[in-house]
Each structure stands twice: as structure tokens, then as C-alpha cells.
């Protein structure tokens, strides 16, 4: 009926218009900011130039006081060079004599400098005996001139040139962050369109489409739903009304026929036979009456999980780019443990709690209800975030981060369960696309915005923002339906048993997928993205905002490539190849640092890692179902996937630990390289191991 992407086309058009408006607004803000920067920063820099100039002048006067001729001073240009090194905004320095002739100079001389130096007003400065300095715009520089005067005897003038473009350089640094804000705004727009309008629209149009389908199949049963008071709601009310009229007419006709039959003679009964036949025909073709009470499994309910999940995951993702630096600030010496390992400890513990908790929290959330489990999880995490913001030292930080991890695991599992409860085989993939979509968007927006916040308002307040975001997610969770959907045939989920874990760990086929693909992929993800990148970037003098931008590159790659690689790997049925190629690309990423430690190379590392992970991530879990059918038959789907996820998440926990140990041995660059080499080795081993005929995809059955 309606094209599947009808609404998405509208969203993109709306997002385009909103983005154009936002870009124009940002340009206006930047323009006015530039004016303010220009007006306020230049005088301040001129004062600084005067102070620096006074220091240089003191040196000159000291030299002349020893009897050295003013025009024969030695090392003046060298002193100027040192000044430039410490003050990059200075572009030119010169000393002129009382006639305005240049004696010593360094840097880029602005056009018109020579005539400016001979200007009588400037020449007059040499005769000043006070600390006076004068500034004037000469070409592309602001020249600050001050007298060199030896106890009333004018010697010359010192000139310091400030590059007028230095304000542009300052604003250029802001521009990078503004671009990040734009990208985040685009994702926010799509998320908000979905949250504020799309969920209801999609639900309304979906309901309309289902209603049309029902009527086409002859189902005119009346539904007793409350319709929203909007365009779609009004439309559905009109359709409901038309159906009600039909039902009333039908009931009336049936009643009339039954009345006539009750009081009819045999002859009259015969005459009513055609009407009876007609009613029978109608009853066969069409259905009237009341529709069975609808289940809550419509798209509307599914969509409602997206906002709370997005807000909650965003709270955690905000911290990704600066958490290691924050830990570094609160670090306490633990005897026998290297500081590098200690920095990775909270991340490791977080991942471990999530890994070990998830299998068991699944059945807990089923028992207490998904909504309640999400609420408890979000409350626990909010306390964790607030505690982290106020942490005294590493020990209590670990406690607060553990609460965050517990809350994260609870919310994640309960939200997953919410989707599972409301989807069947037909729309489960769609449900999980929505679930993963919310997480991915949070992954794009979180680290970059978190980095910007951390740089400007500090780590503690940024954790405060996370706590607020988590609090907001509580409000959104409270709006979820209070009635839980209980699947009638569903078995209660359970965590994997030790017996199953042990059996699967020694299973060659299962471990080829898990040990050579899933675990190394997670080790490099958390080791590089959550531990090495934030720390390495700060160690080379960059900011948390830059670490956030790097992590955003990874997330954007995932958002763009995962859907494509998932559909391609499904279509070709050569998922093993996608996993192999993905692992090898991930493995090659860190090796780039062997070429250079430049910033661009680090960008390349994150880009390649994102590409490699995006290629392999979707195919990995599908391969389990494809190649571990025997294991699934023996232990069950839940157990096999439970163990798979458990080991995969243990890989998450191992990542920061391995990375930190490698940092102790070989430093940051060495750690990048070694971690990548490990994954490259696993990728090659996986490729060789899956080369045999048992790993070939089964031929599609002919229908």
C-alpha cells in the first residue's frame, strides 16, 4: 500500500530543511563571535606584546649598559626567535634606530612596515621616557611600538607585530567542534522527528494500513480503540464510524430476518429462503461484530522504547572520550599494580559486570517486568553517574562506576526484552533495527559532545550532565506502558549453565567463531576505542574533544557501513568472508602507527578499525546460527547464544586490560600495534580455519 520508506523520505526532507536553517544560524553566531573575538582579543594581545617587549627591551638596555654599541648588539634575532616560539601569535619583531631604520628584525615583515617606522609619530616614541606603547594596524599585522630609552637618551624603537589572522586561527579551532555539533544535530533531528512525530505517525499510518487490509479481506469487526486527536486519529475515527454503521446495519438486518423467521409460516419461510441464503453468503465472505481485544504489540509501543533507550545510552556514551583521563586524575597508587592498569580498571570492571550480569538479569527483568527493570536500572545508573561526578578518589570511583555498569546491564537487557516481547518472527529484525539504531545514534552523538563538555566545563560537571541525561531517561521510561506483554508460548529465559559453557568452550566450531572472531573484535574495540585513543590523544597534547571526534568517526563508520555489510553478507551468504576481511582490516589498523605517529595516521587507525568492525559485526552472530546448528540442536538456541554473548562481552572486559599491559611494555604506539597484530593473527587464523568445505554455505533450497 504505502511505500515502506514514505515517512523516511519526509523525515530526510524535513531534516534537510532544519539543517539548512541550523547552518545559517551557526554562521550568524560564528560571524558575531568573530567580531567579539577581534575586538576583545586584539587589545589584550597588544598588552601582552607590550609586556613581552618590555622584557626584551630590558635585555637590550642591560647589554648597552655594559657599553655595547646599540647598533652592534649580538643575538637579538635569536631572542626574537625565542619569543616567537613561546608566542605563536607574534609574526614580526624589529628594532629600529631613531631615524626609523631597521637594525634587527625577525619574522614576516608586513607591507608598509618601513614607511610606518619612519612615520614622525612613530619616531617620536623613541623620545618617550615612560613605559608607553602604541599600537597600529600595518598591513596584515597589528604593530605595537615602544621606546628604547637609556635614562633619557633615545636609542630606538622596539616593534612587535601581531598576526591579524590569529583570531581566525582561534575560531578555526572552534569550527571543528561546530562541525561536530552539526553532525550531532542531524542525528538528533532524525531521533526527535521519530520521537515527537514519527512514532505516532508511523503507528497511525500502520494502523490505517492494517485497517485497509482487514477490510479488503472482509473483516468489518469494530475495534474499540481510543484514537489520537490528530490528522491520522481523525481519519481512523471516520473509518471506525463507517465500520460501526455497517455493523449496525448488519445487526438490524439479522434481527429483522430472525424476527420474521420466528413468526413465519412454512410458506413464508420458503419466501425468506433467498434472504437466508444471502445472509449465509455474507457471513461466509464478511465478518461483523466486535474485534478481539488488540494486543499491545503495535509499532507505536515498539517506538516508545527508542527515546528512553537513546537517552540512557547517551548518558554512558558521553563519558567515553574522557573517562580514562578522569581516572588518571583521581588515581591512587595501588601496590603491585601499574598505573596504566589502574586507569583501565574502572572500564574493565564496567565491562565485566555487564558481561556477567546480562545473562541473569534477562530472566530477572522478565520476572519483575521490563518497565520496572528499566526504571530500577536507570535509577541505579543515575546514582552511579552522580557519584562518579563527586568521586573522591579511585576507590569510590570504582564503586560508582560499578553501579553505572549494573544499571547499564539492567536497562540494556530489559529494553532488549521489551523488543522481544513485542515482536514476532516477522518483525523481530525490524524491532532490533530500532533497538540498535537508538544505540548507534547515541554512540555517534555521545563521545563527541562529551569530549567538548569535558574540555570546557570539566570532567566532574560532564558526569553531572550524564546523570541528568540518565534522569531524563527515567522520565521517558515512566511513560512506557505499565502493562507488560507476556508471551503465551514463551519459555522463561535463563542464563547459560556452567555445563553448557564448558561444553561449548571446548567445541572447535563454536570456538573458531567466538575465540578467533567475536572476542578479538571486542578486545580491539574496547582496548583501542575506550582505553588507548582517549589516553593517547591527551598524552600527545590534544584534548578530550579531539578524542570524542575520533570516536565519532568510528561510530559514523558503523552507522553507515553496518546496514550495507549486513544486507550484502546476507545476500551473498558468504558471511565468513565478511568476518575475515573485517578482522584483517581491523588488524591492519593499528599497524599504521608503525609508519608515523602523526595525528592523521591516528585518524586512519580509527577509520580502518570502524570499517573492519562494521564489515564483520553483523555477519559474526549470524554465522553462529549458520554453522553451529548441531550445537544449537543439543544445547538450545538460548544456551549457544548466551555463551557466545558472554564470551564476546568478556572480550570487552579483556580489551582495556590487555591494552594497559601492552602500554607498560611498549608504550601507547606499541600497544596499538601489538593489539592490532593480535587481531590480524586471529583474522588470518579464522580465514584458514573457515576455508574447509564444512564452512561453505548450504545451497539454497529450491522452492
Amino acid at each position, binding site marked *: 500500500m504505502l511505500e515502506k520508506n514514505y515517512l523516511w523520505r519526509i523525515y530526510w526532507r524535513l531534516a534537510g530543511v532544519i539543517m539548512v536553517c541550523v547552518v545559517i544560524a551557526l554562521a550568524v*553566531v560564528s560571524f558575531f563571535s568573530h567580531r567579539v*573575538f577581534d575586538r576583545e582579543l586584539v587589545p589584550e594581545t597588544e598588552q601582552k606584546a607590550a609586556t613581552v617587549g618590555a622584557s626584551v627591551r630590558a635585555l637590550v638596555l642591560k647589554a648597552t649598559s655594559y657599553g655595547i654599541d646599540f647598533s652592534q648588539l649580538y643575538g637579538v634575532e635569536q631572542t626574537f626567535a625565542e619569543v616567537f616560539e*613561546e608566542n605563536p601569535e607574534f609574526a614580526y619583531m624589529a628594532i629600529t634606530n631613531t631615524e626609523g631604520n631597521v637594525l634587527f628584525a625577525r619574522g614576516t615583515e608586513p607591507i608598509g612596515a618601513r614607511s610606518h617606522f619612519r612615520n614622525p609619530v612613530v619616531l617620536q616614541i623613541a623620545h618617550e621616557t615612560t613605559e608607553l606603547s602604541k599600537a597600529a594596524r600595518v598591513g596584515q599585522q597589528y604593530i605595537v611600538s615602544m621606546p628604547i630609552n637609556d635614562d633619557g637618551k633615545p636609542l630606538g624603537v622596539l616593534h612587535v607585530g601581531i598576526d591579524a589572522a590569529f583570531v581566525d586561527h582561534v575560531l578555526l579551532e572552534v569550527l571543528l567542534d561546530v562541525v561536530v555539533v552539526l553532525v550531532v544535530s542531524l542525528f538528533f533531528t532524525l531521533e526527535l522527528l521519530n520521537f515527537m512525530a514519527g512514532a505516532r505517525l508511523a503507528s497511525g499510518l500502520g494502523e490505517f494500513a492494517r485497517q485497509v487490509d482487514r477490510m479488503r479481506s472482509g473483516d468489518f469487526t469494530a475495534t474499540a480503540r481510543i484514537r489520537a486527536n490528530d490528522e491520522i486519529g481523525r*481519519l481512523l475515527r471516520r*473509518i471506525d464510524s463507517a465500520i460501526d454503521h455497517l455493523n449496525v446495519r448488519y445487526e438490524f438486518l439479522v434481527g429483522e430476518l430472525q424476527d420474521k423467521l420466528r413468526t413465519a409460516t412454512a410458506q413464508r419461510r420458503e419466501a425468506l429462503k433467498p434472504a437466508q441464503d*444471502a445472509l449465509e453468503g455474507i457471513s461466509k465472505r464478511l465478518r461483523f461484530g466486535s474485534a478481539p481485544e488488540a494486543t499491545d504489540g503495535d509499532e507505536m509501543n515498539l517506538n516508545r522504547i527508542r527515546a528512553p533507550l537513546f537517552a540512557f545510552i547517551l548518558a554512558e556514551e558521553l563519558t567515553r572520550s574522557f573517562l580514562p583521563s578522569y581516572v588518571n586524575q583521581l588515581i591512587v597508587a595501588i601496590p603491585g599494580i601499574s598505573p596504566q592498569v589502574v586507569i583501565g580498571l574502572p572500564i574493565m570492571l564496567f565491562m565485566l559486570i555487564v558481561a556477567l550480569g546480562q545473562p541473569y538479569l534477562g530472566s530477572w527483568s522478565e520476572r519483575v517486568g521490563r518497565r520496572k527493570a528499566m526504571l530500577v536500572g536507570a535509577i541505579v545508573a543515575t546514582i552511579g553517574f552522580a557519584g562518579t561526578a563527586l568521586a573522591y578518589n579511585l576507590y569510590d570511583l570504582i564503586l560508582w562506576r560499578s553501579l553505572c555498569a549494573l544499571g547499564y546491564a539492567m536497562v540494556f537487557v530489559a529494553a532488549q526484552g521489551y523488543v522481544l516481547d513485542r515482536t514476532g518472527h516477522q518483525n523481530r529484525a525490524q524491532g532490533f533495527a530500532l533497538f540498535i539504531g537508538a544505540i548507534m545514534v547515541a554512540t555517534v552523538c555521545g563521545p563527541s559532545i562529551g569530549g567538548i563538555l569535558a574540555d570546557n566545563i570539566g570532567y566532574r560537571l560532564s558526569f553531572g550532565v550524564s546523570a541528568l541525561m540518565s534522569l531524563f531517561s527515567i522520565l521517558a521510561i515512566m511513560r512506557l506502558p505499565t502493562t507488560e506483554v507476556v508471551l503465551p508460548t514463551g519459555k522463561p529465559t535463563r542464563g547459560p549453565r556452567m555445563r553448557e559453557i564448558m561444553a561449548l568452550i571446548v567445541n572447535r566450531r563454536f570456538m573458531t567463531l567466538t575465540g578467533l572472531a567475536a572476542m578479538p573484535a571486542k578486545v580491539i574495540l574496547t582496548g583501542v576505542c575506550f582505553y588507548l585513543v582517549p589516553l593517547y590523544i591527551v598524552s600527545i597534547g590534544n584534548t578530550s574533544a579531539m578524542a570524542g571526534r575520533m570516536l565519532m568517526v568510528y561510530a559514523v563508520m558503523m552507522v553507515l557501513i553496518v546496514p550495507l555489510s549486513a544486507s550484502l553478507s546476507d545476500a551473498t551468504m558468504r558471511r565468513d568472508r565478511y568476518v575475515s576481511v573485517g578482522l584483517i582490516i581491523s588488524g591492519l589498523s593499528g599497524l599504521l602507527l608503525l609508519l608515523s605517529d602523526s595525528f592523521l595516521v591516528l585518524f586512519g587507525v580509527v577509520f580502518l578499525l570502524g570499517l573492519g568492525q562494521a564489515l564483520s559485526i553483523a555477519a559474526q552472530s549470524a554465522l553462529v546460527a549458520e554453522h553451529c546448528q548441531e550445537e544449537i540442536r543439543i544445547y538450545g538456541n538460548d544456551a549457544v547464544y548466551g555463551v557466545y554473548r558472554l564470551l564476546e562481552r568478556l572480550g570487552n572486559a579483556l580489551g582495556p586490560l590487555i591494552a594497559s599491559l601492552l602500554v607498560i611494555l611498549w608504550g601507547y604506539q606499541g600497544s596499538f600495534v601489538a593489539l592490532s597484530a593480535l587481531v590480524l593473527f586471529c583474522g588470518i587464523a579464522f580465514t584458514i580455519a573457515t576455508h574447509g568445505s564444512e564452512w561453505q554455505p548450504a545451497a539454497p533450497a529450491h522452492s
Partner: protein
Amino acid sequence: MGTIRVRFIIVALVVSFFAVGMAAFLNYFKYKSTISGIVKSRVLVIGRNVENSVQASLSVGMQFMELGTMNALLSREKASDRLIHGIDVFDQTGQVLYSTERARVGEKVSNSWIEAAARSKTTEWGTEAPDEYVAGISLKNNFDLTVGYLALRYSAEEVDRAAKVAGREILLASIFSFLGIALVAPLALIVVIRRFERDLRALEAAASHLEDRNEPAGPTGSAFDTAIGNLRSSLREANVALDDLRAKLDSVP
């Protein structure tokens, strides 16, 4: 105005508020950190002069605790910039050895100063208190060992005043930009969602005449035409069946 249109406009306003707010926030903090950096480096120029003098004294064998001309030097350097409130030199325990204010000699400096100096990866360090900022230099001897610290206390007023002025202007620019968006975005959105609204109107119009027996109007070009056609034909079919039943019932007196 349709409720869907209102929701779309609210989305545009919320996103614009976020983007403009973030841009204003970024510009303001960049300005504040730049101006703080400029003022701090200006103060440190004076600090470097003191550092050079200390190092020159140490290199000729004088003891750090016995630099007789130090207080006079500090007073002279303090006078060279009106921004500076005072200059202190303290040892590694935090005890002030020399100062522009005699009363401070022998007192302990704030722990935050020592922590900031220890945390810094270079010889320069800094810390901020509500009323004054501190820029410092770790003083090293010829063997590159830290013998003490130099702290220049300077007025926070200059930075705060500049930040206030810039903040106000950036805020005003942001408010006007946002108001501009609030005016333009709804108009632009109305143009973009016209087609969608036309589709919805066609749907609503068709739905309001669902029970009409006469021939439906031709296709509207809306994305919902097929659905509307199906809806009408289903209802017509049901009505025809019920009409037939009615006729058969009526035929029996």
C-alpha cells in the same frame, strides 16, 4: 494548523536551540580559555624574568634559601604590570620563602597550588580561585631539580570582565539567530511538508465521504490513492451485500 505540522516545527525549534546553544557555549568557552591563556602568558613573561634571575643566582653557587635581593626583585617585577596582585616564591613543602607581601613569608600556600605544580607536565602551572588566578613556574637548579616554585597572583577581574562582555554579545547573537530560525524554519517546513499534508488532506476528504454511494472522485495523485480506493471498494462491496439482503427481506411482505 495541523498537530503534525506543530510537532515538526517543535522538532525544528528544539534542534535549533540545541545547535545554537552548543555553538554559543563553544564560542564563549573558547573565548574565555583564549583570553585566560593570553593573560596568563603575559603574567608568565614577568615570571620568566624572575626565574632567569633565580637561576643566574643559583648558577653562581648561591643558596635558594638565601637570595638576599629576591624580595626587592619581586617588588620591582610586580610593579611592571598592574594586573599582578603579588608574587610568592615557596619551597616544596609549600612554605613561602620570598614574597612581595612581607606578611606572607613563612606562611603555607594553598595545597591546590602544590598539586597543580605537581600535576603539570611542564615547568608552567596554574590554578584558579574565585577572586584571583595564579600562574606559576617550577624553579629548577642547574641539575634540573626543582628547588621551589614561583607563583604570580593576578586579578581575575580582567578575564572575568572580558568574558562577561563577550558572553553577553555571543548570547545576544545566539538569541537573535534562534529567533530568526523560529521565524524562518516553520515557513520552510510548511513548504516542505505541503505534499505530505496534501496527501493527508486527500485521505481525510476521502474518509469523510467513505459512505457516499456515488462514484468516487478521480485519483488525487496522493500516495494514499490506492489505499483510499481499496477502502472505498471494500465498503461498497459490504454495502452492496447488505443492500441485497435488504432487498430480499423487503421482497417478503
